């Protein structure tokens, strides 16, 4: 909730975006270390390891790719797997699009390139709160760049440090992303359709956890959306307590 009545500036939005992402930036640190070390250990050159973080910038798919490299998988297999693992980003981009559609491509290109789970979560929480500020894109840029720079540095440290950070996945920092997502999702669950959506998605994701390449996540997300839409059409009153992003800009 924005209680401050002063008009946000580009700089203040940029810094707020970075600040709101901070818990998940800290949470990503050990995984950057581990990815850098693991990828080199699995046979990628340090340049390719750093290049993957620089150009692909998608943590879970980078881990899966590093594993497939070790198994000697064909490039086509790794690329197709990466596509499936990262398909959920299309949902994020569709979800953000109504808020960002007025922006020129010079904004959409970097914001799309750096779109991660973490940035999506903080931005989708913040965007509906914007009341005709011209600077909402700076908030997303701040979140994106903070995640991006952190991921590069942590990858390099992992490459340089090798096995020094073995066991970093057990530091407990992975919970930081989960608890942030909980803090973002739970307050959204104010209508029955929203609650049904979250329950259907959660249960499906748990049941399909064994599916490869995040496919369970993708199916769960679509079933959750379908359940929410269905429940909303079954109870028209739900429209009143929710606001579509059409009123923006």
């Amino acid at each position, binding site marked *: 909730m924005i209680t401050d009545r002063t008009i946000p500036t580009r700089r203040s939005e940029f810094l707020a975006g970075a600040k709101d992402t901070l818990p998940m930036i800290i949470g990503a640190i050990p995984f950057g270390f581990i990815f850098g070390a693991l990828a080199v250990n699995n046979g990628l050159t340090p340049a390719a390891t750093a290049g993957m973080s620089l150009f692909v910038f998608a943590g879970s798919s980078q881990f899966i790719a590093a594993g497939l490299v070790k198994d000697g998988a064909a490039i086509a297999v790794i*690329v197709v797997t990466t596509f499936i693992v990262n398909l959920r980003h299309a949902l994020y*981009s569709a979800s953000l699009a109504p808020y960002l559609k007025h922006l020129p491509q010079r904004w959409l290109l970097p914001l799309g390139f750096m779109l991660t789970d973490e940035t999506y979560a903080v931005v989708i929480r913040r965007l509906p709160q914007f009341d005709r500020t011209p600077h909402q894109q700076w908030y997303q840029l701040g979140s994106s760049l903070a995640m991006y720079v952190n991921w590069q540095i942590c990858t390099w440290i992992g490459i340089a440090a090798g096995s020094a950070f073995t066991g970093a996945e057990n530091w407990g920092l992975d919970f930081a992303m989960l608890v*942030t*997502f909980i803090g973002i999702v739970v307050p959204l669950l104010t209508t029955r359709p929203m609650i049904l959506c979250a329950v259907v998605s959660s249960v499906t994701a748990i049941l399909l956890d064994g599916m490869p390449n995040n496919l369970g*996540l993708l199916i769960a997300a679509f079933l959750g959306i379908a359940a929410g839409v269905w429940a909303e059409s079954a109870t028209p009153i739900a429209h009143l307590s929710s606001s579509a992003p059409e009123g923006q800009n």
Partner: protein
Amino acid sequence: MDEILLIFGMTVVTFGARYPILALVGRMKLSPSVLRALRYVPPAVLSAIVAPALIAPNHQIAITPTNAYLIAGIVAIGIAAYRKNLMLTIGIGMIVFLVWRVIIGG
């Protein structure tokens, strides 16, 4: 292995998932039913990430007191539901998680 080809391919498909919808949507008119469906994306996707990570942190369902993810997750859900304060949820959730791991000797 041709690493340049590998990274090029991964970059194209990842960017291909992230960017095109953002790039094209300005030229499309989104129907109200699509906009309505999109409002369910945040709870749907984020729940699908969180739920298995809490219930089955090692891809094995573990509904036990020794599962710190589950215990701290339940506490965090409770705080988020009653206080709706993100920083409070993160702070207390992390503390409960780390303390619980010490208690159970994890």
